[in-house]
């Protein structure tokens, strides 16, 4: 079982990111479960969403307290949301930030990427979710970039889908290049 927790703010597509991640895993024949931290999805409010990926049937529905990976869509929620709590040893932390962020995590694989900047450049909107999933595919290897692209195309259509796919690919290549 691979467990992912995504932190951000309402309006940044945090819940959609978890849903797309679950679709990507499903397309690879895995069991996947995505759900939001219910009811708090107001514009600008801190939001958490969860995704479990497994080769076996997923039954448990408790929130994820020991994630294998954490995605931070908005670094201003790190402290108030205690966003790094419970990360497993050698887990992945992917932060939306153009500059390095001091995490005090000694035993995690931390990666920062300016996802909002890439989104603005490629999509023209500051929604970093698809970009971060591209980077996530490169960083963790848990899902393939092709599955991420298919998942983006399931959720979006037309120009928006096209641009988000491009943005995810850019992030994927950049992350691979920096590893």
């Amino acid at each position, binding site marked *: 079982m691979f467990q992912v927790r995504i932190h951000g703010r309402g309006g940044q597509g945090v819940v959609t990111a*978890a*849903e797309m991640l*679950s*679709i990507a895993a*499903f*397309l690879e024949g895995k*069991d*996947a*479960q*995505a*759900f*939001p931290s*219910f*009811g708090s999805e107001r514009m600008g409010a801190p939001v958490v969403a969860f995704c479990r990926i497994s080769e076996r049937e*997923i*039954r*448990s*529905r*408790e*929130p994820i*307290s020991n994630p294998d990976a954490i995605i931070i869509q908005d670094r201003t929620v790190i402290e108030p949301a205690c966003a790094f709590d419970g990360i497993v040893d050698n887990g992945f932390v992917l932060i939306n930030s153009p500059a390095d962020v001091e995490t005090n995590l000694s035993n995690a694989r931390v990666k920062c990427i300016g996802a909002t900047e890439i989104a603005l450049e490629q999509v023209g909107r500051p929604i970093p979710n698809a970009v971060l999933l591209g980077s996530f595919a490169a960083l963790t290897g848990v899902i393939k970039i092709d599955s991420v692209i298919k998942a983006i195309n399931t959720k979006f259509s037309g120009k928006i889908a096209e641009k988000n796919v491009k943005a995810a690919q850019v992030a994927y290549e950049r992350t691979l290049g920096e590893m």
Partner: protein
Amino acid sequence: MLYQLEGSQAVARAIALCRPEVVCAYPITPQTHIVEGVGELVRSGQLGNCQYLNVESEMAAISVAIGSEAAGVRSYTATSSQGLLYMMEAVYNASGLELPIVMTLGNRAIGSPLNIWNDHADAMSARDAGWLMLFAENNQEAADLHIQAFKIAETLRLPVMVCMDGFILTHAYEKVDLPEQSEVDEFLPPYKPEFSLDPENPCAIGAMVSPNDFMEVRYMAHRRQLEACAVIDKIGTEFSAKFKRNTGGLLRTYHTENAETVVVAMGSVLGTIKDTVDDMNQTNGNGKYGVLSLVSYRPFPDNEIREALKNAKRVIVVEKAFALGRGGILAREVELALKGLDIEIVTVIAGLGGRVITKSMLAEVFRQPKGNLVFLGLKEDAIRQEYKTVLNKGGA
């Protein structure tokens, strides 16, 4: 075919496969995505001549369903929480008039205080309304139970409420296998009511019944509830034979053979309970644990529950609602089913108003329940503090 879908969309598509001709609803969190999904399918022409009525209240939603069903048309609605309470007068009418409406209840707490999150207080408020009530454990079950619900309802001429946990299921993405239209058509033939309101052949329904006959009418309704157990079981078996999934029936057991302790629950918490029990059974010294998933709450399958639990030493009922001042509701019904057997019964009230239920919380209470009525994760410090404040204000 397999899809990765939000629970609400899975249910919307399952409803569409059942070809209702009238869908009427008023949106309320967390049911909204379901009726939006059905509305979308109606608008895009995928439901043929289905009429979607966006009514002005829940009272109107159930009333429209009653009217259309009385006119002989397969009808569907959905609601949650206060929405169900607002419907309640007509909810009783629907069953009294023997109208096989299917309704989804996206389970949510009841205010006040206002709370939009999940528990089963809404469902419990309708437990004596004469509806059949089925609870889904996951989104596959939620979809499948709706397909079975229409068949059960129309076989028995009774309305069926399919309960699915708000947010936890309605808003969760998971894998759902949706059948083909042709398969559902074979399973669920077009609705042919025995009688219906028709201007060509005028008749009346819902006439006043005097003290001379009212008791008999109620007794017959009681009898039909009891007979419903066999019908739900039969249709569940039929469904699993056709679709190769055991997602219906009255109840399901999990490792209950030789279990000293059996946990009984309804709805989405069962997945977390099963994982907890698996972990505990792998650790020596915990005794043996099993799980009973109750699918049919109304009718309440007394005999089947008694048979499944008769060898247990202890039964722990985890429920997401309770009667203020009294304790467990489901637990009392389980207790009645086990009357005369030497089995200890523990009530665990959990997850009220969306309170998180974790495996570690469950494991702790399953291992050593503190008393016969436990409020899982209750913040006792906060309650002590609150009492102190109230006493101080009162000048004590």
